[in-house]
């Protein structure tokens, strides 16, 4: 496995995602429930899925093309889901704070 620019970027991506995972787990006890608490476990699950998905990227050359396409499609799908949930959650928070 050669160390080139995409590889370095991938390592940074994995590091950032690991930090995100640590952050969502660490913040969990401070949000026992409510509008945000209800969504937090879902966001935590999605970050965990991303973390696992990102960890596969340094080994992509070894993964069969069909499986690779499936992994990338999955990351795209869950990424879109994550953004949707985050935007909806932000909207709820804005509504609550401006009501």
């Amino acid at each position, binding site marked *: 496995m050669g160390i080139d620019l995409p590889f370095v970027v991938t390592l940074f991506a994995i590091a950032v995602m690991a930090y995100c995972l640590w952050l969502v787990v660490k913040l969990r006890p401070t949000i026992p429930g*409510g509008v*945000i608490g209800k969504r937090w476990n879902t966001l935590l699950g999605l970050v965990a899925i991303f973390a696992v998905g990102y960890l596969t990227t340094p080994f992509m050359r070894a993964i069969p093309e069909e499986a690779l396409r499936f992994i990338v499609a999955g990351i795209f799908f869950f990424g879109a889901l994550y953004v949707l949930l985050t935007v909806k959650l932000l909207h709820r928070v804005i509504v609550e704070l401006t009501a």
Partner: protein
Amino acid sequence: MSFPIVCRTEKGDEELRSRRHGLGRDLRFVLILVDGHSPVDELAQKADGWDVKSSLRELARQGFVTLGDESPPEAGDVPAIKGRLIRIAEELLGDNAPAIVEKLRAAPDTAEGLKSAAEHCRRMVRLLIDESLAEQMEARCRALLMTL
């Protein structure tokens, strides 16, 4: 019943508006009587011949009303009202109360300051702790804040 003041919850208000929860005639009548500041004995006098206390227990069990404090503090007594709000938060929120109690304690001893802090706390509870507890807290605090 150990707490004579009774307040309607949001569910109670909604039932009066829409009959969505299909409350029976007797319970609905008692729910209409609940005004957030009359003690149970006064409500019982208004509804002479009705078993108001049992109805209120049932309404509280189903979440249409919440039990308030023993006696209202004097109107405009901001520190006393603040103390009551803190007690309500502690009763309702249990282990999750400290952050909310801290906010209420830090509120200025003015009517506007306390109202604003109470509203801020309600939003915090709704966003971070529990939506139904936020409604209960609002219902129980409403009558107190009206005396400011």
